[in-house]
């Protein structure tokens, strides 16, 4: 981890008002260097890149984290006052039944350990705490789902599909393959927008906040993507599927009337099980 020039550290120290917490300059400099190392893992960046990068950091929050690591009572007091209510608010929004609050308490306890070492100032402290909480909550829910036995009721519900003609089943298979092919062709951002809105059930405003787009823009893009998907599905069915136009229309209609096992959420995030889960890394302490 390469140290940053003293002059630059001193300037950033002043910008962050780190003296307010009596953070040693070297501690702050080390945190900046760790942040640079995280952002540029593949090699030594140019001094200009470094300067631009550190200038865009959330310096005041980084200084506060450094002060907490350093054991400043005033910093902890400030953190408690400013961040804890926000964290609890987020926990209540994530799970109103209170389970996320327990995670928030555990997270808060971890801050007294070494959790702050993983904050690098690339986001606000508030967003980082919320992201850690969200990640822990999602991992806990996913772990719970893996262990949860299937209830008889659920089996019964799933075992009673609506009566469908054999032809409809074939139609659904063709539409599913066409949809998979069409989704694979989507631009990452279009796919992400689609996943946020249709699969993750976010509102337009939430989707927009995530993608830094106005909700009207999100709505417009979604409409365009849906039209494109529909065209691509029909093209695929006519081309790869070799279906005549009447049959294409009939199949699409049959799939719309009864989608059966067609699950857009699974298609948009279905590759995840093959990926390396961050749970393993969190076991090693990285969050």
């Amino acid at each position, binding site marked *: 981890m390469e140290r940053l020039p003293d002059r630059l550290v001193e300037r950033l120290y002043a910008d962050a008002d780190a003296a307010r917490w009596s953070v040693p300059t070297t501690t702050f400099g080390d945190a900046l260097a760790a942040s640079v190392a995280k952002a540029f893992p593949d090699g030594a960046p140019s001094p200009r890149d470094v300067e631009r990068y550190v200038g865009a950091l959330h310096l005041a929050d980084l200084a506060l984290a450094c002060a907490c690591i350093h054991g400043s009572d005033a910093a902890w007091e400030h953190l408690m006052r400013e961040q804890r209510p926000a964290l609890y608010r987020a926990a209540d929004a994530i799970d109103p039944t209170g389970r996320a609050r327990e995670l928030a308490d555990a997270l808060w306890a971890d801050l007294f350990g070494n959790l702050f070492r993983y904050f690098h100032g690339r986001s606000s402290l508030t967003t980082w705490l919320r992201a850690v909480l969200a990640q822990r909550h999602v*991992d806990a829910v996913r772990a719970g789902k893996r262990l949860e036995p299937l209830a008889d009721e659920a089996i019964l519900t799933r075992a009673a599909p609506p009566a469908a003609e054999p032809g409809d089943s074939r139609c659904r298979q063709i539409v599913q393959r066409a949809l998979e092919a069409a989704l694979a062709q989507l631009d990452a951002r279009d796919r*992400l927008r689609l996943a946020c809105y249709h699969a993750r059930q976010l509102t337009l405003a939430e989707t927009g906040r995530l993608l830094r787009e106005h909700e009207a823009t999100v709505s417009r893009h979604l409409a365009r993507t849906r039209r494109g998907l529909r065209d691509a599905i029909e093209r695929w069915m006519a081309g790869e599927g070799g279906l005549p136009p009447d049959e294409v229309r009939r199949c699409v209609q049959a799939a719309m009337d009864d*989608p059966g096992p067609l*699950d857009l959420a699974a298609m948009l995030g279905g590759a995840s099980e093959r990926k390396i889960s961050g749970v393993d890394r969190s076991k090693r302490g990285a969050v």
Partner: protein
Amino acid sequence: MTHADICPDAETLAAWYDQGLPPAERARIDAHVSTCDRCQTIVATLARADVPALVPAREPSWWSWRWLAPIAAGVAAVVVWALVRPGSAPTVQPPVPASLSARAEPSASPPASAAAPPLKRAPEPAPPVAQRERAVPTNAPPVAPPNDANELRRADERAGNVAFAPAAPPAPSAAAGAIASARTLQATLDAVAAPDIVSSDPSVRWRIRGAVVEHSTDGGATWTPQATGTSAVLTAGMSPNPDVCWIVGRAGTVLRTTDGQTWETVAFPERVDLVRVEAAGMSTATVTTADARRFTTEDGGITWTPARLQEF
């Protein structure tokens, strides 16, 4: 295994959310999240948990309005002069109804996109959603539902504007506006009585008073409270016939009567505020959440299917 296959850690996702990543890394995270179930769920949770604090409104102070005094005095003087000067006849403008002036306000929303043909999917329980930035109660009898959820959302917004805009003071900022509308919503839900829920037989109707349901069989001349077993604030209802009525409320509350007298609580998959219900009978109903998602049941509430994918 490629670099793109590895799930980013929470710090990176937070930086991605806060636009703290350089374009190349942001594009890499975009690509990963767009195909990763776990990361999609995390960022969706992150977005849902982005709840702004409700700051208490500042008390209006005399000091902040003092500058208006000389202007008001000047205006008053001009008005008095105009009224008393010889040869002047006062003209009276008919008052513009508040609802009309609200209706006349241009909508900031663009026109709803054309609805594409629907595509359903198997219902998937969504994670709990507590953040509701657009909670608009609709107690009026439901109108025909738009095909597109966006259209529905905008219809709700328009309805909300008509109902609430006249009462709301001009907001100095978007945040203050949101707080004001949230408070207006709260006040409306708590204090304003809903219009009657009239069945197909106009003599049989229900009305909602906060968490209380009242029933009338004489066209609203007399009302009898009915036990519902819920303490949740109720927001809307619909009665397709004199025996059946569906009522929805906060925190996923769905009530149904099939004999016009006794109410049962229908299980709903999310603890989300519900603002509208459209019922076709004792088994079929569609409810709308405060964030304009719609769920339909065709088996009396045993299963609910999200309607959003029907927009395709």
